[in-house]
């Protein structure tokens, strides 16, 4: 693919830039809209350059906006979403690590049965099991709680399988060397397996954080109180059916605020993320 033919490179770059434009333009457009007044947005065509109301819009969305989304500020929604995304990502990683550890390194009756049980849940995403899960959450009184928001999304076959695949590549000799060195199961997990899984954990964390952040249907069902809502659900609530009632400039600001944290996570963890996907440190 890498060649010195200038025309070839030109075409390659053109395609890449085109791709970037296609992906980035809507986001840029959202940003542009978030710096305009409502009147400017409603009256097309919308300018392609940012307007002059950046501070005004952002401060009113962040600080003056109490009462706008059912009496809850954007900060509260962002906080809820952070808790939910972190809860799902960290919870999933812990559970998957432990279950993969058990399945790969221990011989116990029904090992394969449990493996298949976990595997089968791959076919049951949240949406499929949403009604029974909802019923369970209601019975447990977990509506409008962080537990209710995160717990049902934690048990994950995908992450378990990923860790299982990784653990299976760890040479048996390493496990045996640790046994000879007097490391029990817990020590082996803590001293050897966890450090070796670092990059995988980082990559999974990024993926799962974004997965948690963008959840819509589940938080919509699980929360009745507005102050337990997430930013994605709140965003939807800001848009009323009558077009004129919607404060589009503030919706756009909220959009930008909603995509900032995932971007931050990706950018900050990029180095680890890429290493986790390409490098096998063995």
């Amino acid at each position, binding site marked *: 693919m890498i060649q010195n033919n200038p025309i070839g490179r030109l075409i390659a770059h053109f395609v890449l830039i085109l791709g970037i434009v296609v992906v980035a333009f809507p986001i840029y457009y959202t940003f542009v809209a978030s710096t305009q007044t409502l009147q400017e947005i409603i009256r097309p065509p919308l300018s392609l350059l940012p307007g002059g109301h950046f501070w005004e819009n952002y401060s009113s969305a962040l600080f003056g906006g109490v009462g706008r989304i059912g009496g809850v500020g954007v900060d509260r929604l962002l906080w809820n979403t952070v808790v939910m995304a972190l809860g799902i990502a960290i919870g999933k990683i812990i559970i998957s690590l432990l279950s993969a550890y058990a399945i790969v390194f221990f011989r116990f009756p029904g090992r394969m049965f449990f493996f298949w049980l976990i595997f089968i849940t791959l076919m049951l995403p949240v949406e499929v099991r949403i009604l029974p899960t909802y019923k369970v959450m209601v019975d447990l009184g977990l509506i409008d709680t962080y537990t209710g928001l995160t717990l049902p999304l934690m048990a994950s076959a995908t992450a378990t399988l990923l860790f299982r695949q990784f653990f299976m590549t760890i*040479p048996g*000799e*390493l496990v*045996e*060397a*640790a*046994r*000879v*060195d*007097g*490391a029990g199961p817990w*020590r082996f997990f803590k*001293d*050897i397996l966890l*450090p*070796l899984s*670092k990059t995988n954990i980082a990559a999974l964390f990024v993926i799962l954080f974004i997965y948690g952040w963008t959840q819509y249907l589940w938080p919509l069902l699980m929360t009745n109180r507005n102050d337990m809502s997430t930013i994605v659900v709140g965003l939807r609530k800001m848009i009323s059916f009558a077009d004129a009632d919607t404060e589009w400039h503030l919706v756009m600001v909220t959009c930008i605020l909603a995509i900032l944290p995932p971007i931050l996570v990706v950018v900050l963890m990029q180095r680890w993320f890429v290493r986790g996907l390409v490098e096998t*440190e*063995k």
Partner: protein
Amino acid sequence: MASVELTNIRKVYGGGVEAVKGINIAIDDGALCVLVGPSGCGKSTLLRMIAGLETITEGVLKIENSVVNDLGPAERDIAMVFQNYALYPHMKVYDNMAYGLRNRGMPKGEIDKRVREAAQTLELGHLLERRPRELSGGQRQRVAMGRAIVRNPKVFLFDEPLSNLDAKLRGQMRVEIKNLQRQLGVTSVYVTHDQLEAMTLADILVVMNGGVVEQIGAPLDIYEKPASTFVASFIGAPPMNLVHVTANSAGLLLKDGTHIGAEGLAIPAEGAQIGFRPEDLEVVAGSQQHIGGLLLDLTVRGVEPVGAESYVYGDIGGDKVVVRVAGRSVVEPGDHLRVIVPKEKLHLFDAKGKRI
């Protein structure tokens, strides 16, 4: 330091496969015992049973006169060097060596002292802060040895530790391991499939085949008096030549029906195999008379000059043989040679391959 005693050790895997079929070995304190055999002969399984990484189906394993069958690997006070070194990739060399000591709750100062001592012995001092992936194969090998040494265990176990090194380094490390083992005087069990390694390292050599011990003894004793055709063809490079013979009233018959003089050899009725080392053959001029040796006709099939000597490949009465000739050989494929084997250099095996 301790003696190791294996009594009637058996290993049967879940599927009913019997990998080790009743083995008895006694290793004296400070001795280096080499288990050698082709792949699948059970030598690694046996080593792993001594290490405690495999359960012992039957039999008694004693280290320093106490039964350790039911102890875990960490409690047996053994240290093991693995084929692929099994270094912890995320730890520095220092931590790799210190890990086992830390797990035993040894005080920091003592750990540091031992690691530095071992590093000095193995000339690893300047590498302590590196990670395994920054080291060459030989250096990794040394770290693996260091990890075993610092523990100061009762027994060292080596599982084909040199098989991943190139030939030159392998030779060097072989000498080093031998010296180190002598110097430390730790009882060792060493598994290899390389007969040269086995010959040069062993105090006691155990030749295994199909889960049983074919022969135990000092390396040179085994070389000179192989107990079976298997041992004869496994120990020594090139291996011992084996020629099938049957006796009749007039003398001996080779596989293809060639007649040769019996020279007073007592051949059992069901036939036998005559063995002789490649270096024990002597090429003789055609008409010369010889007494006290077995005269054979050899058809040359190929010649391999390796420098100081040449290997002449050929066949005698339908069996393939090798002759070791000093210097360069002038024979060509297709030539016929008359060779003689002195009687005292002959080995005789019965039809089942056992030494007579």
